[in-house]
């Protein structure tokens, strides 16, 4: 029998991230129900990226507890990674490989068949550029390709750090489709985009929850 989907997608309690002696995030409490879409807002250096990196298991929290999709984000991160899609600041593509080869490579790492790469490419409307090397794509097209990589394995939770960077209107229009049916956490400076895509938001200031800009269900630390 397939395991039941967790009711809570993200549960953080007293979550802290430090760089040296400086506290970058926290202490922070957060509860995100499955299927919800959370926008993380805040100025530069507010801790958005640091928070997202912890949620995506890129970085380990310095202290506190973080549960993602019912799994411990530190101890069970290997299992978790198959269920989370992440897009960071860098596109992380291979310039010498074509758009399709880039995705096929990541499909192989996920243990997926190459057809998943074609599906993901079509999802971001880059199918006509499948045979174009990543280095010859525009910055916006590279961002779309990186988005395709993030959703390649059909993750339950999507963690996107400024996904709209360099995207044109068509590209931004694709974001809604990519988030559909998934729990999502995205950091952005664009409040209008956050309103379009998300049903709740949290405002970070100096690593702490400074308020809920839309007065929605976020528990601040």
């Amino acid at each position: 029998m397939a395991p039941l989907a967790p009711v809570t997608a993200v549960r953080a309690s007293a979550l802290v991230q430090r760089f040296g002696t400086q506290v970058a995030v926290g202490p922070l409490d957060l509860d995100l129900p499955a299927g919800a879409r959370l926008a993380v807002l805040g100025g530069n250096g507010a801790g958005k990226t640091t928070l997202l990196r912890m949620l995506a298991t890129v970085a380990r929290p310095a202290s506190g507890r973080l549960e993602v999709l019912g799994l411990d984000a530190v101890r069970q991160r290997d299992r978790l990674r198959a269920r989370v899609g992440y897009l960071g600041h860098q596109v992380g593509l291979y310039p010498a490989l074509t758009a399709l080869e880039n995705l096929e490579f990541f499909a192989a790492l996920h243990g997926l068949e190459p057809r998943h790469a074609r599906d993901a490419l079509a999802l971001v409307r880059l199918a006509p550029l499948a045979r174009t090397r990543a280095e010859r794509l525009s910055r916006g097209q590279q961002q779309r390709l990186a988005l395709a990589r993030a959703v390649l394995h059909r993750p339950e939770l999507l963690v996107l750090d400024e996904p709209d960077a360099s995207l044109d209107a068509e590209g931004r229009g694709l974001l809604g489709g990519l988030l559909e049916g998934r729990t999502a956490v995205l950091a952005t400076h664009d409040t209008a985009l956050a309103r379009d895509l998300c049903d709740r938001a949290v405002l970070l200031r100096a690593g702490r929850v400074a308020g809920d800009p839309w007065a929605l269900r976020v528990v601040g630390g």
Partner: protein
Amino acid sequence: MRFLSIALAVARKDVRCELRGRELLPALAQFIVLALVIANFAFDVDLVQGPRLSPGILWLVLVFAGLVAFGRAFAAEKDSGSLEAMLLTPAGATAVFAGKAAAAAAMLVACEAVLLPAMAIFLGSPISPLVVGTVLLATIGMAALGSLFAALAAQTRARELLLPVLALPIWVPFVVVGGRAVQLAMAGQSPSTLPLAGQPLLVLADFDILFLVVACLAARFVLDD
């Protein structure tokens, strides 16, 4: 099985990127030829001295070519963010490391394919199958350790400085034992005539197994922690 298929996919990707980008191999080939030309003038090598000096020159050039080849293996991926993207898949850091080490070893083998014939031309070194076998055997362990330290150095800002400081002392056993084996082979002696415990090829094989296991065990902590 999955470990192997992932390692193979990573290695294939690295080799494909290098063949298309042609960033490393042409520069390394030039470095090798230049190093041999300099050695030729610096040691005033003639046909009598050449074979005697060859083992030392071979390992010197190989070690420095290795530093360049392994240094690139992780640094470029770390800077572009693709290493992070790979590690966020369920592939596992050890399999990713094994693939990258295999690709780095393939680069070093390509260097050796330039180095050995060039040594025969410039220094008159007698390159026998035994010399080739010894160098290939040493390449496995050197690649495992070199890639591990390259992964470690890539996490730091002073990576160009850190990699030689870490790798060179640990490569010394390969240079000592490999140098002895190449010396014997170039002198026309078979290392198998030595007592079993002193056979350099066996010692090199032992080093390979030891350092492969150590590097694979340590890779997860270096890459993903």
